[in-house]
């Protein structure tokens, strides 16, 4: 099964190189994400598979399509020679393959990567943190600083997109104008399906301690529910429900919630992000801390993902109106 998946990955990659129709390449990229996620699953990385499926196949594809709508569908044939890049790539690849000859074999339990801190996480985290999902406990508790940094990166990316593209309020968009919104079957099915998607996102958010899931995944799924609504019911309808201004504040709120947990423990005489300040019982303190932190992450990821989508789709509207100026 692994080998079949890897072979399909290779085929997809080669096809993605060769095809000049960028729409097709984007679709192939969606397939590639699905295959990658399935492969992650077969390597026991259930949380990563969750994230890759939601992010790679969902959000990234949608963003790329939104970009393609503006930049044109067909790629021109590259003029310069492809042999020099091919040689560079072959040499780099050969060097890397040579490097792997000394690497530990796949699945070797004595590999260096399995020796350092991981045994401690695996043995102690169920007792210390008290939640079964080790990925969540490492993510939100042991490596809380790291995750805080990542949340800031996401927040900054949202800011950067707003700065570069700008984001419109609901007044300037056209509710109900959409090419596929006139399909009755689609509208009905999406209406029925939407509550389940949002409910599933909440389940992923709250169940992240016990199974696969957590703030990152839940935020993305929640956002994709709104994106689906926006796609089917027309540009701007979702914007009336979640105004972009509100989203900006929500993104900041998530980061502030995360950092606030850290500051709270700092003011209580503990180290930054030391959850034991939150409660007397150390295990329940960890529970509360992880819950709050994951909530902060979820809110930030949701609002940033939706903000980025709004910025991209809103841009499409502007360019349609003003693209008539003569080319350079």
């Amino acid at each position, binding site marked *: *099964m692994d080998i*079949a998946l890897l072979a*399909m990955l290779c*085929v*997809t990659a080669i*096809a993605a190189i060769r*095809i000049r*129709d960028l*729409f*097709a390449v*984007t*679709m*192939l990229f*969606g*397939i590639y994400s*699905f*295959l990658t*996620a*399935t492969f992650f*699953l*077969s390597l*026991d990385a*259930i949380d990563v*598979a*969750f994230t890759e*499926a*939601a992010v790679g*196949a*969902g959000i990234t*594809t*949608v963003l790329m*399509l*939104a970009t*393609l*709508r503006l930049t044109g*569908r067909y790629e021109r044939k590259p003029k310069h020679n492809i042999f020099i890049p091919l040689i560079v790539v072959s040499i780099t690849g050969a060097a890397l393959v040579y490097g792997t000859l000394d690497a530990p074999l796949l699945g070797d339990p004595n590999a260096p990567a399995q020796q350092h801190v991981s045994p401690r996480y695996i043995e102690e985290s169920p007792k210390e943190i008290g939640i079964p999902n080790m990925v969540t406990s490492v993510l939100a508790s042991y490596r809380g600083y790291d995750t805080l940094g990542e949340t800031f990166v996401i927040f900054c990316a949202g800011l950067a997109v707003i700065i570069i593209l700008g984001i419109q309020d609901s007044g300037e968009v056209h509710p109900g104008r*959409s*090419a*596929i919104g006139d399909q009755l079957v*689609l509208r009905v099915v*999406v209406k029925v*399906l939407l509550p389940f*998607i949002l409910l*599933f996102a909440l389940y*992923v958010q709250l169940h992240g301690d016990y*199974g*696969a*899931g957590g703030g990152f*995944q839940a935020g993305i*799924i929640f956002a*994709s529910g709104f*994106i*689906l609504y926006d*796609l*089917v019911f027309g540009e701007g309808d979702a914007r009336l429900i979640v105004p972009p201004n509100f989203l900006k504040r929500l993104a900041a709120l998530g980061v502030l919630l995360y950092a606030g947990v850290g500051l709270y423990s700092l003011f209580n005489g503990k180290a930054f992000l030391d959850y034991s300040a939150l409660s007397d019982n150390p295990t329940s303190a960890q529970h509360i801390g992880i819950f709050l932190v994951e909530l902060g992450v979820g809110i930030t990821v949701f609002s940033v993902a939706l903000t980025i989508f709004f910025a991209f789709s809103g841009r*499409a509207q502007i360019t*349609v109106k003003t693209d*008539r100026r003569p080319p350079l």
Partner: protein
Amino acid sequence: MLFAAVVAIIVTMGLALIRACLGPTAYDRMLATNMVGTKAVLLIAVGGHALGWSGYADIALLYAMINFISSIAVMRFFEYQKTLPSQEDE
């Protein structure tokens, strides 16, 4: 029998992948992409059951939803883009 089903699903995925690479029109590719997604859902469900993965049902559920969203997105943006040139012509 489980094994046979897994093999069948993988073979189908491969066939759909070939169609996605060949597909003369963009709609063919959409269809093939959708089919690969559905087959991935089935592969996770059946393969996860066969190999005893824990928590595979959640992932399959997520895949089913995301697959729908991405195929809707492809359709919407593709359709929209095609109407643009005709508007410019008028």
